[in-house]
Structures are given as C-alpha cells and as structure tokens.
C-alpha cells in the first residue's frame, strides 16, 4: 500500500504555477483571498477557544436547569436558540458543550501525536526489520474505519471522557507514525545528517537536534486537521450514546436528542451541527495555512 502512496503525485508541492491570464491586480486580489481564508481559519479557532474557555461564564442560563413550562420554545429574545425538550436553554448548552469538544479534540490529538511521532522517529531512524514489522502493525490499525474502531474500544472500556479521548487517539496515532517515519526516512539520506554523523554525533543528538525539527511541521499540519476529526468523532460517539454521558451537555448528545424533535424544533440539531461545522472548518483552514506557511517548497519565488 505504501507503493500506492508513493505513486500518487505529491500534489500541491509539484503543482506548476499557471501563468495567470488576468491582470496583476486581479491576481493579487485572489492571492489576498487565499490568505484571508487562512485568516478565517485562525479567527474561527480563536473564536472556538474563547467559547471553550469562557463558555460557562457567558452562558445566559444554567445548561442543565430544566424549565418544564418552556419546553421546545422556538428562538426568541429570552432564548436566542430556543429550548430543548426539557426546557433547557440551547445556547447555554452549546457554549458549555464547546469546552468538552475542544478539550477532547486537543487532548486526543496529543495522545495520538506524541506516541505516533516517537514510533515514527524510532523506526524511521533505525529502519530494518523493526521498521517493517511496526509499519505492518500501523497498517493493521489503519485498516479499521476510524469510527468503527473507536466505537468498539469505547464499548469494551466503557463510556467516559478519558476513554473517548483514548479511543480517538488509538484510531489516529498510526497516521502520525506513518507520516513521521516517511519524513525521517527522507531526512536520514540528507548529506548534512551524514556530515554530522561523520564528526561523531550520537544518535540521540542527531535525532533531537537535526531530525526532529525537520519532521515537525507536517506533524503540526496533521495535528490541526486531527483536532477537527477528533471533535467530529467525539460528537459521533456521543450521538450514538457511547460518548460523554448526560446530563453533561455535549454537541453529540444534543444532536441525538434533537433528531427526535427535528420536525418541530430543527434548531436543536442544526445549532450543534453548525458548531461542529465551524470547528472542523476552522481547524482545516488553519491546517491548510500551516501547510503553506511551513513548507519551504511552497514559498513563492520573488
């Protein structure tokens, strides 16, 4: 399968610059838009982080306080996003839910990327039979559809915030391992690594001072995309009733309940659905921006 990846054109890196048929100003406009897209990503991620940190404080109501005279109320001045089947304020629940979502997203990515990077660096640097065996194991993990594997892990370990993060991490760590291993393999062949080795530098020094800095930028890109994935996966697990358990408000559980009232109260699904959309879009754009900013091959030649 590695051969199939190798055959795929490396995409954007080799993409030839097409001579624009339009004027300079029009071109500049589009380039500006291109940068603005990254900016949109940064703004969305900041917005989300703000909500996650201050969500509980700025929430107008207690997110788990029921108001049984005011159930399934449509959006109004008192309840901007309406109320749910128990009269709880949707906006407040949404804001409180953002904390869990972002927390799961970031911690799951850390839990996946750190072991992934360590495995990738070690086997990529050592090579040989250990490399072959570890790569087959990672292939094995990657063969599982992520959500199916995460679902199985949570159902075996039991539903809790930590187990959800662990399950998401287990489904994504092989991607980091593969990515880093490929980078290290390429990096190992560079002349300067040979030069450092020839003056007698120890492996640990070569890895930490010279190999790691070279492989870390694709990891950052992958991590940014990974947060978006983890947020979606958490919502998926909670939606299926296997994530974070009620009454803690999470976007996934809000969606699960909301679907039962879709006809009369569509905001109950669409509001948290839109939040997931914003979160994933933000982290995807941020990842794309990081890719362009960090890839030396893509720096425009002046």
């Amino acid at each position, binding site marked *: 399968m590695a051969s199939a990846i190798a055959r795929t054109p490396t995409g954007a890196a080799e*993409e030839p610059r097409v001579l624009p048929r339009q004027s300079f100003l029009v071109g500049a406009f589009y380039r500006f838009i291109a940068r603005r897209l990254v900016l949109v990503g940064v703004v969305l991620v900041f917005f989300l982080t703000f909500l996650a940190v201050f969500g509980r404080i700025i929430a107008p109501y207690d997110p788990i306080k029921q108001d049984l005279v005011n159930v399934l109320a449509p959006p109004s001045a008192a309840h901007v996003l309406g109320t749910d089947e128990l009269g709880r304020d949707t906006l407040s629940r949404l804001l409180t839910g953002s904390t869990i979502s972002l927390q799961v997203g970031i911690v799951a990515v850390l839990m996946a990327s750190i072991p992934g990077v360590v495995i990738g660096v070690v086997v990529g640097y050592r090579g040989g039979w250990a490399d072959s065996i570890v790569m087959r194991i990672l292939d*094995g993990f990657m063969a599982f559809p992520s959500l199916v594997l995460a679902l199985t892990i949570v159902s075996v370990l039991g539903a809790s915030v930590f187990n959800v993060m662990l399950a998401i991490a287990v489904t994504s760590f092989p991607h980091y391992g593969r990515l880093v291993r490929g980078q290290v393999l390429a990096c190992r062949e560079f002349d300067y690594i040979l030069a450092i080795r020839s003056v007698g530098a120890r492996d640990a020094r070569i890895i930490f001072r010279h190999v790691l800095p070279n492989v870390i930028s694709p990891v950052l890109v992958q991590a940014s995309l990974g947060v*978006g994935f983890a947020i979606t996966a958490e919502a998926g697990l909670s939606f299926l009733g296997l994530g974070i358990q009620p009454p803690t408000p999470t976007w996934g559980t809000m969606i699960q309940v909301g679907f039962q009232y879709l006809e009369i109260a569509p905001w109950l*699904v669409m509001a948290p659905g839109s939040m997931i959309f914003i979160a994933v*879009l933000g982290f995807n754009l941020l990842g794309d921006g990081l890719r362009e900013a960090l890839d030396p091959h893509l720096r425009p030649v002046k």
Partner: protein
Amino acid sequence: MARYVVGRLIAAVPVIFITALIVFTLGHMLPGDPITFIVGDSQSAFSQQQIDAIRHDYGLDQPIYVQFGIWLEKAATGDFGRSFQSRQPVLSIIVPRMLPTAQIAIETWVLALLIGVSVGIMSAVSPNSWKDWVGTFAALFGAAIPFFLTASILMFVFALHLRWLPASGYVPIYQDPIASLRSTLMPSIVLCLGLAAVVTRQTRSSLVEVLQQPFVTTARAKGLRERVVIVRHSLKNALLPVLTIMGFQVGHIFGGAVITETIFAIPGMGRLMVESVAAREYLVMQALVLIAATTVVLANVVVDLLYGFLDPRISISRG
C-alpha cells in the same frame, strides 16, 4: 500477470492478520469469562460438566495463542460463533444487513465521483478564476460539514416539509428499485459530500499537472477542441490518483454508515454495529469490525491491481 495479482494478495495477508489480532485482543480486554459469550445468560441451564465440555470445544482451556489460532481458523471459514440472545450463527445475522450498506456505499461512490470530478474539472481548466474559487469553496465546505448537519437539513426540507422523500427506512432494491433509490438517496448524499471534496481536490491538482504536459500542448496544437483535449487526452491520466483516493475512502464510508444508518433507520451493517454495542453482542461486533477492516484492506488491493492495469508506467509483468 497472475504473479502480480497473487503478489498483491499475499502482501495483504500480514495486514489482515494484524487486524484480526487487534480484534481478538479487544475481545479479550472485555471483563469476565468468555464462556458467558458462548453459553449466554442461560449459564445456569448447563451443568459444570457441559460448560467444561464447551470450554474444551472452543479451546478456551488452551493457551491464548492457540485460542487465537482456533478463533482465526473459524473466522476464516465464516464461523464467528453464535449470537448471545437469538442463538443464531453470527454470520446469518450479518449477511442480510449487507445489502443496504453495500447499496448506499455504491451510490455514495458514484455520486462522489460525478460531483467531485465535474467540480474538479471546472476548477482545473481555468485556475484562479471565479469558477476555481467556487470549486475550492465547495471542497472546503464538503470536507468540513458533519453528517448530522447535512442529514438534518435534507431530512427537514425534503422529507418533513416537502415530503418528496421518505424520512427513514429502507426498501430493498429487488422489491422496488425506484422506491429503493428514493429511500437511499439522502443517506448517500450525506455520505458523499466529504468524499466528493477529496475527489474534487485530487482531480483539480492532478488535472492542472497533466494540462502542463507537452502532449497536451501537442493535442491543442493539432487543433483539437478543448473539450476533446480534456476529456479524451488529459482526464484519463488525471483520474488515476483519484482512483487511489477512492480506494482509501472505503473506510470512511463504513464509518459514516454507523451514523447515517442510525439517523435514517436503515437496517444495514452500521446500524447492526450500534445495535450490537447496545445489546452487548460482542461476537457480532467482533465479526463486523473484522469484516469492515478486511473489506478496506481488500479494496486497497483492488485499487492497487487496477492501478497496475491502468497505468502503463507500472510494469505488471515484473510482479
């Protein structure tokens, strides 16, 4: 050629073996005596002697690696044990659930390919134009929009309000093909957006690359119409990487099926997975996970093989 095919298949064996090992290990991480999964709740109905006999029969008195061997051997022949509750063989529970999932998967694939390739071509033929930007935005949105949001909007508008499509349920294709397509249209659209986004991006970048090749200039210099240059000469080359991407996305469709089949009440493998998790039917779960992973591995083998046949640069005679 036969050597090439066999070689690719053999390369898939260790991966399938590892997935089986992971599934087996997960099964063993469950608390409790595995014998309860075989005799079920009715444990008291069996005498200790009978339980010991069953334990021996299933090899549960053997060392763990022998157990794995026995389990793998049975799984390879389609014997995943019996259901906890209905006492039916696990495979006979799974097989009827395969059709809806497979049908939706195929529809998703076709839709994603149609949408992704057309938008990708639109983007690639005039890079940096407004059309290109529409394509880029569409791909960004398609990649980020969660299943829930698409599903809720479609269901609200087309099923609950306009009442054009059924909100849930599944009609088998052999019963009524039209009704069957109607019942699977919304889940397929929901699943295909993310895939279409990936296809769009890949089609655009590989087509832009191909259009720079000298043979395209030659074709244009010959006076061929742009349409012919793109469809007949360039697309063939540009779609090869798209094929690889589609192969890698089989897992995405499987994972998505768990969500969409739950939302739209489709009696497929995804919903069976959720049902068996809820009912603690571990043997059904184990079998489903293994079948899903094996399908993904085999799909990648098929893509690899297709690639070998379609790309003249890869010599298949060398194996």
